[in-house]
């Protein structure tokens, strides 16, 4: 999951050295201008004509119904009109180009509609019933007949923070050390490790949960506690941290390493005092991306943690809840759209989404800083 544009960070490093860095399109010196005034007029006119045409079709044909059908017919006729009018003015080459532009632009717009719809749904519905008590109450006395203020996600929020924190505590050092191994030490083992890291990042999340269950819980080494959930999540987090950290370490200029080695420092001191500090912000990004990868994971937690209605601050004993399990449980128990459980569910989703957004923005801000710039 490329949550962050590392090629952009790479460009900062590479460009001043004179290469084009293979970062592609932004290096085009000439940006041809096809979309002039005549083109704009053609497109707007086609849109209006298509609107009129669709209205006509809708009056005549009863096969189609609803807003969606209207939109589809309008879009098809719009692209058709753009093609025909462009062809008459500029010939088939430009007409095809215009057609492709409309189709491609529509695809991009189409991809962003669900994003807007999801964010809107979570914000509107999550905010609707939201009370501050939601963040401080547990589900100890709550039932499907309760009022909204009688239940909350305090126990789940604490559980999520502890479980994700524990997972990070396990996979961050291991992931960064693996990245150091891949990039600084290497050797014959590097190839298979790199391949299996990629394979690991493709593991379905539920399989990670099954693994922890099969190894530790079924053999009674562990109970279904927060810690078991953290172990399952750390399996999912490890490859994300490793791969992002490896990309970041590769951006550290070789000259810095050579200078350090030439001054007589050992490999370990070079890594500790030069490579890792230089890549500091990038490594933080790797951690943030890893956390963002696992914070919403539900399936492995269902298998390894089961969930709970009660507050439990100790992840090593007894059952614990986490936000994803909380949302999942409320969804399964809710019977309708306006019930109190549905409201709890949306409020939980809202809190989870806020956490994800905070992580996302943090990763963006850190990722936009240039890696490998020497500090005073």
């Amino acid at each position: 999951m490329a949550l962050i544009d590392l090629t952009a960070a790479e460009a900062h490093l590479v460009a001043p050295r004179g290469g084009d860095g293979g970062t592609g399109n932004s290096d085009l010196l000439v940006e041809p201008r096809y979309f002039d005034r005549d083109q704009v007029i053609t497109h707007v006119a086609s849109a209006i004509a298509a609107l009129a045409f669709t209205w006509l079709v809708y009056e005549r044909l009863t096969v189609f119904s609803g807003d969606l059908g209207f939109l589809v017919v309008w879009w098809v006729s719009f692209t058709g009109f753009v093609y025909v009018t462009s062809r008459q003015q500029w010939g088939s080459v430009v007409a095809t180009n215009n057609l492709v532009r409309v189709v491609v632009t529509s695809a991009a717009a189409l991809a962003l509609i669900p994003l807007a719809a999801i964010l809107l749904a979570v914000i509107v519905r999550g905010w609707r019933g939201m009370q501050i008590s939601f963040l401080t109450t547990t589900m100890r006395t709550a039932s499907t007949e309760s009022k909204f203020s009688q239940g909350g996600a305090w126990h789940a929020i604490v559980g999520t923070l502890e479980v994700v924190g524990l997972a990070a505590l396990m996979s961050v050092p291991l992931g960064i050390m693996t990245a150091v191994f891949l990039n600084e030490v290497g050797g014959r083992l590097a190839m298979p490790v790199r391949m299996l890291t990629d394979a690991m990042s493709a593991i379905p999340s539920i399989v990670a949960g099954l693994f922890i269950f099969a190894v530790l819980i079924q053999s009674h080494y562990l109970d279904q506690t927060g810690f078991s959930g953290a172990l399952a999540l750390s399996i999912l987090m490890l490859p994300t941290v490793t791969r992002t950290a490896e990309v970041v370490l590769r951006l550290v200029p070789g000259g810095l390493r050579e200078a350090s080695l030439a001054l007589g420092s050992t490999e370990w001191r070079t890594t500790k005092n030069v490579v890792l500090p230089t890549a500091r912000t990038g490594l933080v990004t790797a951690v943030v991306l890893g956390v963002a990868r696992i914070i919403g994971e539900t399936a492995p937690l269902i298998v390894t943690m089961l969930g709970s209605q009660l507050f439990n601050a100790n992840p090593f004993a007894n059952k614990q809840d986490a936000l994803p399990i909380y949302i999942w449980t409320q969804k399964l128990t809710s019977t309708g759209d306006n019930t109190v459980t549905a409201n709890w569910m949306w409020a939980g989703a809202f809190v989870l989404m806020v956490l994800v957004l905070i992580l996302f923005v943090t990763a963006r801000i850190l990722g936009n800083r240039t890696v490998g710039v020497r500090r005073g």
Partner: protein
Amino acid sequence: MFTPGSTARKVASTCVVSTVRVSAADTPLTLVDDVPIDIAVSRGASDRAYRGVSYIAGGTTLLLMALIAFFLVKRGWQAIDYEGWGFFTKTEWNPTAAGGTFGVAALLLGTAIIAIIALALAVPIAIGVALFITEFAPRRVRKSLTSLVDLLAAVPSLIYGIWGAIILQPKEIYVSRFLSAHFAWFPGFHTTSVTGHGPTNLADFASSGFLAGIVVALMILPISAAIMREVFAQAPPGEKEGALALGGTRWGVIRDVVVPFGRGGIVGGSMLGLGRALGETIAVALLVSRSTRTHDLLEVLKTGGNSIAATIARSWAESSGMATSALIAAGLVLFVVTLIVNAGAAVVVNRSRSGATTEI
């Protein structure tokens, strides 16, 4: 994916020496090619410890993958042994604590159907998104668009699931009914009634594989689009400028430079999306009604739909004994299938000329 090009390390530990050698004829002096020679390094205790620790860290990944495969086989073997080949051919899924009858065939079929629907919807749109960002979007908005697509990838699948079940489904059933009424000739769109009220009853179309396919398509779209965008962006600027200089349009550049160059990225991005779609758990578990009758699964618009991961998630809590083993064995099948798909994706992306530095 990553070229092992840690040049810095190589340069640091070897030394490039220009050897000057006197030729047999004594004159003139010729410069022989630069030959890197290894410097004999004697490492101190701290460096040996450092290398040892980093080797252990790297080895942990290998060990973990081996352990995952081993324990899934070990715990799932009870179920596979109990059913024999039937585990792969039977369609019913009724494991009990003591035994029962079960096989993954229907679950696997349901998983494949959802993945195919998701891929059919997501890949064309993902190509469009990637092309728009690299070729058509004004330069100012390219970065923000990339961010937005990445944000789409960061939304937890659980949230996709509840959104799909509560917000999308009431709208989607009308589309399903429309498709079954007017496009019944299309494979999979023919629908027979469940409730006996004829296929015009909206309830017939709730919780279908089609709905799950749409939601999974939304989830794999940003992943595929990100790969394709990176590959497209690496199309050589010189060739693109050449095409433009010859009077080509943007479409000409796309058709003759960007797409041929990025073909590996398109295939690889789609296959990675496929891997994700096969393993998607929670969203599918919330959206399908978990039918195991093959003719229900094949009528994708109708109530039904199933997947391995969804079955594990939904029936995990009340399983024990043989049933648990059966679920773990099903998880093993899923693990193997996704590994094969992703390995294929990695090979395709790596082989393409453009994908050499693509992060997947």
